[in-house]
């Protein structure tokens, strides 16, 4: 049964500041660096969340949510539904807390991410994409015990993600725009909540791949929409719909969604390797693809590089000038 929509005050600036205290020592304060593409006009910056201990920002949200859970709530362990990065975040924190962890994954989840989840000691339960999506919608997986940590629609997870916004404003107080890869909306809502509170005039933009862009469709229609989702190498982002719970929130917080092609994302991954010496997964490179295409406008633009967990064969294809399937 779908849960109630998230209320913006649930991820207020105080909750985000409190989250920062809770996760210090768990997540690192990632650097904000210039995109080293001197031939492009304007100033594009990269918030390198791919340098987090699990290779993505998800440690922030998982860390905050689980710090708020009591030992009693965690008695039967935790579980989550994730294409990989949130699973690593929850598994990492579960290991720290000494509780068991199960992860429900869609069957196209990449081998790199599954291997990393297993290394962290979590148990993997593979299901078809539609069933996995149902867990996301219903906030439970029938028959599974333990405390469910929703990868997206959990105010504590979003507040944890929002700590990225605090760091951006500290490092670049006059930021003009922030571009965020859009998956379930938890990253966008968290970061946007922080930045709206601290510098309301900042443009806050989502980025989606054309093969999985329900947010752009929803903005165009003025209501949450479902779309025809095609899986690509950009596995960490995009769903088949904007979650009903998230739509009222992201509609208020975001100024729009920028849509880029899969080939543009592959080029952005390569550019990040060649010019900035970092590995981004497809989702992580989405904002850079949008910014390089000029879609994010002018001024000081921050691209949040959400993660760097990509299969080495796919990365090799991209570095050789191709686009992975």
């Amino acid at each position, binding site marked *: 049964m779908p849960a109630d929509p998230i209320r913006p005050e649930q991820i207020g600036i105080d909750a985000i500041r409190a989250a920062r205290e809770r996760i210090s020592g768990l997540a*690192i*304060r*990632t*650097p904000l*660096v*210039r995109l*080293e593409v*001197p*031939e492009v006009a304007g100033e594009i910056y990269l918030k*390198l969340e*791919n*340098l987090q*201990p699990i*290779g993505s920002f998800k440690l922030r949200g998982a860390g905050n949510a689980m710090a708020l859970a009591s030992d009693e709530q965690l008695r039967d362990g935790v579980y989550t539904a994730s294409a990989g990065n949130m699973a690593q975040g929850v598994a990492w924190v579960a290991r720290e807390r000494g509780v068991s962890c199960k992860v429900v994954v869609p069957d196209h989840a990449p081998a*790199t991410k599954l291997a990393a989840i297993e290394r962290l000691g979590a148990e993997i339960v593979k299901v078809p994409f539609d069933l996995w999506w149902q867990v996301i919608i219903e906030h439970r997986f029938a028959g599974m015990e333990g405390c469910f940590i929703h990868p997206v629609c959990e105010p504590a997870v979003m507040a944890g993600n929002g700590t990225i916004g605090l760091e951006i404003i500290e490092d670049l107080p006059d930021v003009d725009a922030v571009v965020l890869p859009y998956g379930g909306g938890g990253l966008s809502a968290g970061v946007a909540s922080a930045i709206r509170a601290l510098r309301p005039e900042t443009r806050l933009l989502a980025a989606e791949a054309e093969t999985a862009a329900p947010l752009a469709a929803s903005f165009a229609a003025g209501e949450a929409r479902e779309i025809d989702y095609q899986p690509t190498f950009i596995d960490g982002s995009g769903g088949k719909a904007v979650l009903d719970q998230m739509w009222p929130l992201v509609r208020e917080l975001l100024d729009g969604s920028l849509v880029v092609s899969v080939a543009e994302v592959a080029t952005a991954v*390569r550019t990040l*390797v*060649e010019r*900035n*010496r*970092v*590995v*981004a997964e497809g989702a992580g490179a989405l904002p850079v693809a949008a910014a390089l295409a000029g879609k994010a406008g002018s001024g000081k633009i921050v691209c949040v590089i959400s*993660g*760097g*967990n990509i299969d*080495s*064969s796919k*990365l*090799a294809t991209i*570095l*050789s000038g191709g686009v992975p399937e």
Partner: protein
Amino acid sequence: MTPQPPSLDEMHFAAKGLEGVVVHSPLVEYRGGAADVWVKAETVQAIGSFKLRGIFHAASQLSEEQRAHGLSTVSAGNTAQAVAWVGRHFGVPARSLMPATAPITKIEAVKALGGEPVLVPRDEVFRYMREHAWEQEPYAFIHPWTNRDVMTGHASLGLEIVADRPDVETVFIPVGGGGLLAGVGSAIKTLRPDVRLVAVEPEGCPSFHAALAARGPVDVDCSTICDGVAVPYTTAEMFPLLRDLADDSVLVSEFDVRAAIKRLATANALVAEGAGALALAAATAMSNKERGVSVCILSGGSIDAPLLAEIISDPKI
């Protein structure tokens, strides 16, 4: 003449001047399988290597009149990028003598920053160095290894390591000309004389290792993918300083360098060039007990995309 190691005051002065120019680079936990290994990711610097620290500091200590002659250096690529970046910053020309065999990505990066790469055969680069040929030229020459201000700028990296990981026991440092070891080593030994410094070179270019064995500089042959440290001799000026700073000198095979490049990319989302992966390769070859809490300096990440693609798709690694 052997340069005097920088004083702590000089290091702090340099670090202050570098604020806003270099990033306090993150120390990230290595996720590829060895415990207590931390990677100092200097690849996040604007030019993708630590060289910006020393070169910027050295250029900032020149008078405006000296800088107006233009900056010049000799480089396998990373120093040239630093000099180009700094030249652009001060609005003066930046010229670098580079071996024609330098990675294309490095040559292109120098051009993109407005620098002038002067490509010559590799032997010519070292002849120029040995004969101090820059003395005949009008530019303000910044020597990548023996310039004391360069060393002082690099020392800022050592200050960060000690501040971020007070429990550090061993630091692994790649050695080419020795400027990084001289700077970082001076900082660490000043603050924490108990920390062990391990100088790391590729088996394919063991100039410092051979100099230690011979108790003085010797020439070696160089054949390695670690182009950033492929210096076939340790200079007589640098040798005494490096010898006194390094507690150990280790060599790494080409296979282990490639394996470290692959693991940094796949486990830590970091792109390393050969020289940049040396320190990690050396640390993971040593037992946890022997090295304790370890910091590896990932010095640079300018590697040609086709080579990186080949390494990460190599099934033998």
